[in-house]
């Protein structure tokens, strides 16, 4: 399959905003669940403005890595630093402050199903950022929903949304607090190719607009190609290859090349 980049994607790719400043740094990360060692020795850096793609087979611990970054899981060994702060060492209040700078898009969207889209978006604004002015709330909700192309869904319940709309609403919910880092857990999984392409474009568009740094876990090579500045490949709890999409596409390693078979 030959993957063609749209004009829009080319435009955003050309304008990559990667800098030398490191925003996430993971060293010698190890995490076990019972007897199973999921992460063996993870080393990773994310620069400001960079889009980092993590590829790997299912069950290799890709999601566990980003859950350690956001403090949902505690590493057994190693350090996880975000903005030079060691996440496992942070107090509850410090972790809460840090989380306001990190957006996490879950695979399922994870919209609160007892609330409308608007209430979903307002949830963190009113409770974490303590925005009380209804006019400001309305304006920010409207702005971010227009950004993700979902203004008509403002009063809908999550159960009334399609898979793609849920992803967009989930993305809007994370972007509304203006995070500096975005963590995407398989943002295009379960979507048709056209919607997947739209979500990939949206990721680029939102990165440009909100100037975020992103770690994107995906199996969608089209998404990896158009959104990623750098790609990491994970195998058995370790990163075994690193480079740009084009570099890894030409790799001599059979395992690495296996990911790119459909893209050549």
């Amino acid at each position, binding site marked *: 399959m030959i993957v063609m980049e749209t004009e829009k994607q080319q435009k955003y790719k050309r304008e990559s905003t990667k800098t030398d400043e490191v925003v996430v740094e993971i060293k010698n990360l190890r995490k076990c669940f019972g007897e199973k060692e999921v992460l063996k020795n993870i080393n990773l850096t994310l620069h400001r403005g960079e889009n980092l793609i993590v590829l790997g087979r299912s069950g290799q611990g890709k999601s566990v890595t980003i859950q350690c970054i956001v403090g949902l899981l505690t590493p057994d060994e190693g350090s996880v630093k975000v903005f030079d702060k060691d996440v496992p060492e942070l107090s509850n209040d410090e972790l809460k402050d840090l989380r306001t700078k990190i957006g996490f898009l879950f695979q399922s969207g*994870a919209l609160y199903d007892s609330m409308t889209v608007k209430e979903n978006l307002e*949830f963190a604004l009113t409770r*974490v950022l303590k925005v009380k002015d209804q006019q400001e709330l309305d304006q920010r909700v409207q702005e971010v929903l227009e950004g993700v192309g979902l203004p008509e869904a403002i009063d809908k319940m999550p159960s009334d949304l399609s898979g793609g709309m849920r992803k967009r609403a989930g993305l809007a919910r994370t972007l509304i607090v203006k995070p500096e880092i975005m963590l995407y857990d398989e943002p295009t999984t379960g979507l048709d190719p056209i919607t997947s392409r739209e979500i990939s474009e949206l990721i680029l568009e939102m990165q440009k607009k909100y100037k975020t740094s992103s770690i994107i876990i995906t199996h969608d090579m089209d998404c990896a190609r158009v959104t990623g500045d750098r790609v990491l490949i994970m195998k058995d709890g370790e990163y075994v290859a690193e480079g740009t999409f084009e570099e890894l596409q030409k790799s001599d390693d059979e395992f690495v090349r296996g990911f790119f078979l459909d893209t050549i």
Partner: protein
Amino acid sequence: MENVGDQTVFLSRFFRSVFSGGFEWSEFVRQCYEIGYRSLTLVSITSFIMGLVLILQLRPTLVDFGAESMLPHTLSVSVIREIGPVITAIICAGKIASSIGAELGSMKVTEQIDAMEVSGANPVQYLVVTRILATTCMVPLLAMMGDMISLIGGYFALNFTDDISFTLYFTKCFAALDFTDYLPALVKTIFFGFAIGFVGCYKGFNSNKGTESVGLAANSAVVTASLWIFFIDMLAVQITNLLYY
């Protein structure tokens, strides 16, 4: 022991969140409506039948002793002190604890609780505090209402065979009761309500990720909450006996 430790940590998170400010009033009111109002019909029907059946069962025995006139006294003492609060709490454990366990369990499975956590919000504040306080407030109210409906059920049963006026019946019912009957019953229903909310939230919040665990959380919430109700009741009776008799 690990389970006890986890429950203690969960309980301390609950109390920390209660006193950390930013109480979720609108969610609390919504939960009171869901837990209280939506349980009214079930509690009313079962309480009415319970009062009715108790009179029908008690009557032949008391008639043998020539103590038929003691029927309203006997019913009111047994309903207010013991049967009313316990039956209402057991019904609430079946309806409310399972519903909370399933709801929070499914939120856990679909990563909604994680999403709240990573947004920097406190899921315990929003989901747990509101539900536990709502059950703590609503179960005593439901039990009081259930007690009254049981007595009304008893009045109807008594009028199947005997002729007693509404006023005389209730005068006899309340004449048999004093402060030491009302207060312990009220206090124990507050603890019943707390236990129902706490167990439902704990089981849901700590369910594993998988659809099967939602069912397990709901089932386990009912069984554990019911056991807690009987345990609290046993303690309450012992304490009441020590204090008043």
